[in-house]
């Protein structure tokens, strides 16, 4: 087997790369509370492991697949970095203990960075921007297409970049987590999302309530007070559950009245 330093020019066949990428979209297919993403990582890396000496029936394939299917935790999009890096490490013939240590070390950063960048940043930003466009009176197709195109431009770019970066750097991929998009992205996206929140909420309210906005001032005041109440109550009850109870009560009053 070639050592890591002698394999910098190694290329992953296009078909294998495409198979890994498609499988990355299903990396959470068997997500569970014991191995979390573990089986998904093994599932994604499997096409690359077929290139090991002896193919799918060889001992190298079996021991690598067993190793890669154990417990793993990461953000599903950024798991692409791990999949690329681990595939490279396995094909480069890195020592199993080194690969195990690398897997363990990668879990935390890939989870927290991904959560902040995607779930707490990019997704709410795209959602709020599409709500602002909705509030401006855009058509159904425009609103839905805007959301899907904007969100998935970031989503697919992140997965493609992750796989390429992981494969290129192998076990030295940790330095790539210092990429400006990953490091400063959440903060910058947070700023944009704060603006989008301010723009989107009144516009969305306006479109749903419709023409003749005599109620609008009252609703805006009620929303401000409601938001404060929800922030204050956040440790006791989630806002969506509270809204379920409030609306259920409203329905009861209206139907029984």
């Amino acid at each position, binding site marked *: 087997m070639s050592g890591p330093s002698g394999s910098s020019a190694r290329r992953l066949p296009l078909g294998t790369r495409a198979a890994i990428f498609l499988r990355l*979209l299903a990396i*959470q*297919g*068997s*997500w*569970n*509370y014991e*191995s979390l993403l573990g*089986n*998904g990582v*093994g599932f994604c890396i*499997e096409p690359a492991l077929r290139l090991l000496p002896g193919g799918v029936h060889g001992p190298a394939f*079996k021991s690598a*697949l*067993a190793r890669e299917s154990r417990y793993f935790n990461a953000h599903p*999009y950024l798991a692409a970095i791990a999949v690329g890096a681990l595939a490279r490490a396995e094909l480069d013939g890195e020592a199993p203990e080194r690969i195990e240590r690398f897997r363990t070390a990668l879990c935390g950063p890939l989870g927290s960075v991904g*959560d902040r960048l995607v*779930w*707490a940043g990019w*997704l*709410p930003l795209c*959602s709020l921007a*599409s709500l602002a466009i909705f509030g401006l009176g855009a058509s*159904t197709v425009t*609103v*839905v297409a805007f959301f899907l195109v904007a*969100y998935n431009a970031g*989503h697919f770019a992140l997965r493609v970049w992750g796989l390429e970066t992981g494969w290129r750097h192998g076990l030295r991929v940790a330095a790539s987590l210092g990429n400006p998009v990953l490091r400063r992205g959440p*903060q910058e996206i947070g*700023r944009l*999302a*704060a*603006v989008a929140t301010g723009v*989107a909420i*009144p516009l969305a*309210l306006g479109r*749903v*309530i419709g023409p003749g906005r005599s*109620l*609008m001032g009252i*609703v805006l005041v009620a*929303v401000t007070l*409601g*938001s*404060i109440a*929800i*922030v204050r109550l*956040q440790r006791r009850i*989630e*806002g*969506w559950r509270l*809204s*379920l109870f409030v*609306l*259920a009560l409203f*329905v009861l*009053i*209206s*139907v029984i*009245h």
Partner: protein
Amino acid sequence: MLQLLPVAILGAVLGLDVVSFPQAMISRPVVAATLGGTLIGESSSGLLVGAILELIALETLPFGASRYPEWGSAAVVGGVIFGSHAAHPAGAMTLAVLSALATTWVGGWTMVQLRKLNARWAGKRRDALEAGARGSVVSLQLIGMTADLARGFVLTAIAYALLAPLAAFCIGRWSIDARLSRSMVVGVAASVAGGAAWKLFHSTNGARWLFLGGLAVGLFMLFAQ
């Protein structure tokens, strides 16, 4: 009830997107409810409900192992129920949103059960997985996704079958003014969104001022329309 099968299939596909495949956020309410409405020829009704649910969904982002509501199937139920009352009678929007919220609650519970089932199936294959058996790794993944698809199908079918007639019954007895009802439901949703945005962005440098600036722009645009 003729719509039950297509509605359940759409709910299954969008339920699958939430976690298992491909997480492209076609399961977000603004998309899923619109698709639900489109299924019965009422895409703009679906979008209206979708926008309200999207405001609420801002609070429930799919962080790792946390338990969160399942919006894909639920938003389809909400979109179809609202779209079924094309004249938008008083109470229709409230009941569609309430139906979606109830479904999303149960949907979150079904996802937890599926994760437990996945763990059980993985446990049964532990020896094979430890031996690096390719078939076990692949089949575990495919079984998990198939089960998730089935989960979304059954959830959507049951929720729609139970909640659509209940919503129609309540709409027939609705006594509060239509605009007041709409204001109530969107006001509640916007309150959740405001609280959610605060929780997400309050620690970001300058977020308060940026929010206030955005709010000024939003209000100006609203009253200029």
